[in-house]
């Protein structure tokens, strides 16, 4: 049975879990409720994620001690250990283990878990100002207690207008000049506009809290592991932070992250026992690893998506009928099979599948070449020829372009592929390509809209600026009541579903592998490999 055939059931379960979680937490997130829900208040054997019945069995008893080496993809000389500048996967891996933001979504992609903060609440029931209370007694690696000043310093560093960091694109609307310290351990964050899902924007791994005077050459955070050494493109060595606020974690004494440039070398290192876990197992190797009793494959059903992007302000895609026709050309099950070797779930041209507002009532789009031809004819584009700009920006993207070009011939559409290297693709013409591709991580609906579907978004590839849509988004942002907000969001989604510029054929699985001696790895719906890279939850079972 291929993966996408049972994906709907699995997906449904997930969504219910998320919905359930969201009702207990939602916009009134407090640490009390969350801590109870996540069981992280002191019990040493509980893993951070309570969900994921489909994840590999992480048998209860994890032993303390031992060292863990992880083989990672995508590192190089430009690697950084700066808390606020992660770009490559290895940077992100380091960030998840050294640093922590105020709150963050766990691997299950359930409600945000409080990390450095104890609670983040909308002030006076309005979404334009938020009060943050810090977790009592939480310490940095250097022994200093985290204070409101550290939070303010971190936000100022991220939003530095002269040197904006990665997070500036997500929390640029924080009114940083008017941030107010209320006490040593609490502060008020006013926003430039109301945003009910502010937590999702601030609760990102790259918005980590670092101490005043933070120097990336001597990295200090509140994460489960402390810095020991770091060599760009080669390896990073961290050791256990004994005063980590989650008592009993991490399990292992040391964590070594080793960069690999080649897939074969990474898999060989796992097979040879030189590393105990690797990210991004090539799909071709799944059966080999599964056949090896000493190793385990971790398959995560994520919300990450790799869309085709059609510019809605440029011919021929400025005609909505052409966009609709292109979406009808795609044979999604075939694409999942051919591009992902079955490792994914078909999608419906909409993103944020784990958002409670994700509209499952909209009919699943299926290939309809006759309808596509007829729409193109009406638009005066029968026998259309288009150029699709593609690059290996994410695994499977170029193959997806090839499959699409082949499927398009069925509707009499000629797709010429312009294949570029990643550097050129993200060069000066990025966000200007008429018809191209891109990749996105798992996000909830409003945070994703902020990243890619507004005229002010940093990555609006499709130049989407539908006036009704924009009005709905502004309205939803100011609505704290979740049921009401989801209703508004579904209207916005419907507009994108009917006339948007994205073709979203599938959500791809994240596939990693690890040694059978380890326990604690859970499926990460977030799409971050190896269970959000949360090695604090990982230990040896024997």
């Amino acid at each position: 049975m291929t993966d996408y055939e049972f994906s709907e059931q699995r997906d449904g379960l997930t969504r219910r879990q998320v919905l359930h979680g969201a009702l207990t937490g939602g916009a009134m997130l407090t640490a009390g409720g969350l801590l109870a829900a996540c069981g992280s208040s002191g019990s040493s054997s509980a893993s951070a994620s309570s969900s994921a019945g489909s994840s590999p069995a992480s048998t209860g008893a994890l032993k303390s001690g031992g060292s863990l080496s992880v083989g990672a993809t995508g590192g190089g000389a430009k690697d950084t250990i700066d808390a606020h500048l992660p770009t490559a996967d290895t940077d992100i891996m380091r960030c998840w283990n050294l640093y922590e933001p105020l709150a963050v979504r766990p691997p299950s992609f359930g409600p945000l878990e409080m990390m450095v903060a104890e609670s983040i609440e909308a002030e006076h029931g309005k979404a334009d100002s938020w009060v943050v209370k810090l977790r009592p007694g939480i310490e940095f690696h250097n022994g200093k207690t985290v204070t409101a000043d550290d939070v303010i310093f971190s936000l100022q560093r991220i939003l530095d207008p002269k040197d904006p960091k990665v997070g500036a694109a997500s929390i640029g609307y924080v009114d940083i000049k008017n941030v107010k310290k209320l006490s040593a351990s609490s502060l008020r964050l006013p926003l430039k506009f109301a945003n009910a899902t502010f937590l999702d924007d601030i609760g990102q791994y790259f918005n980590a809290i670092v101490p005043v005077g933070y120097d990336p050459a001597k990295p200090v955070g509140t994460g489960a592991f402390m810095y020991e050494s770091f060599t760009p493109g080669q390896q990073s060595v961290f050791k256990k932070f004994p005063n980590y606020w989650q008592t009993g974690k991490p399990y292992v004494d040391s964590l070594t992250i080793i960069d690999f440039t080649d897939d074969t070398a990474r898999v060989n290192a796992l097979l040879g026992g030189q590393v105990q876990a690797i990210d991004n197992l090539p799909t071709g190797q799944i059966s080999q690893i599964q056949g090896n009793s000493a190793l385990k494959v971790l398959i995560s059903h994520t919300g990450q998506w790799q869309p085709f992007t059609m510019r809605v302000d440029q011919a021929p895609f400025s005609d909505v009928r052409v966009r609709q026709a292109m979406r009808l050309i795609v044979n999604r099950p075939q694409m999942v099979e051919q591009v992902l070797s079955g490792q994914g779930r078909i999608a419906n041209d909409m993103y944020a599948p784990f958002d409670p507002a994700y509209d499952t009532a909209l009919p699943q789009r299926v290939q309809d070449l006759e309808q596509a031809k007829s729409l193109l004819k009406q638009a005066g584009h029968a026998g259309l020829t288009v150029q699709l700009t593609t690059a290996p920006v994410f695994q499977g993207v170029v193959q997806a372009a090839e499959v699409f070009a082949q499927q398009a011939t069925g509707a009499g559409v000629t797709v010429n592929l312009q294949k570029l290297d990643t550097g050129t693709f993200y060069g000066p013409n990025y966000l200007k390509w008429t018809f191209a591709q891109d990749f996105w991580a798992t996000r909830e609906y409003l945070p994703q809209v902020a990243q890619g579907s507004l005229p002010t978004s940093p990555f609006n590839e499709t130049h989407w600026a539908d006036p009704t849509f924009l009005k709905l988004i502004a309205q939803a942002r100011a609505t704290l009541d979740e049921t009401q907000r989801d209703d508004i969001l579904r209207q916005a989604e419907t507009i994108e579903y009917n006339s948007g510029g994205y073709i979203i054929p599938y959500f791809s699985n994240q596939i990693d592998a690890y040694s059978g001696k380890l326990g604690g790895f859970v499926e990460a719906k977030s799409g971050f490999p190896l269970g959000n890279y949360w090695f604090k939850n990982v230990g040896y079972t024997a």
Partner: protein
Amino acid sequence: MSRFLLRRILLGLLTLLLVSIVVFAATQALPGNAARAILGRNATPARLAALTLQLHLNRSVPSQYFHWLGGLVTGNLGTSAATQQPVSQLISGRIANSAFLVFVSAIIAIPLSIALGVLMAVRRDRPTDHILSTTSLALASLPDFVIGIGLALLFATNVTHILPAVSLIPPGEHAWNVPKEVILPAATLIIAVTPYISRIMRASMVEVLESDYVTMARLKGLPNRTVIWRHAVPNAIVPAIQVSALQLAYMAGGVVLVEYVFSFPGVGAQLVDSVGNRDIPVVQALAIIIAAVYVVVNLAADLLTIVVTPRLRTAGR
């Protein structure tokens, strides 16, 4: 002789200068600059502007080139755009590792292939020759990475686990202190170059063994060993020296693939990474060093050829 040497050194320097211009021009022709390559997807206009300024990418192209050339002459290779570390510091460990790998491979591969070539020639058209010739032809037709993967399969991952599958040399550690990590990549290089040298050696040895003076030596009753090693080999070795030099130079650049397969921390991985990052100072430094190896190795081979060829040795006088 010394005039010949001087001329060759000057020509070598000219070659290196031309290489540096070509490499610089090529890196300029690559789309995108270091700031974009480093930020990747996160290249928002504000962050891009900040980094461009930090990396001095706003200077003109010739000014960037002459700045680099001036540094080179004074022994300063500049600063890496990607890491902001001095290039020399960044690449010295890598160069040492790669040089060690190439050196170990060469010191085994060259005598081994010469011996094999002689053996094949002496046993010409007998089973030993047939087996060795066929095997070496088969190995020569395999790409380096296939050999590497095959060796890893045999010794590290599937069949046995006696050697490390990848060369995890800790940063700051030198390859010669962890010899176990070097065995598989070195074996790969040895298997990759041995067939070429041994086949050339065999061919030229076969020719020499048929010559009149070898027959003469045999008729004089000299022992077989003396005939082969004192009389035949010195005359047959010149083509092998030349092809060894080419193979050595190939190893200096072609070590890239082998390093990739074994994640060996050498210049190969560094070069690939730096091109991806548009880290021009590092690309330039590595290109110059690899080119210099070509020049030096070829010069050494020519000198060695002269030394073993009396006719050439006296020609210059």
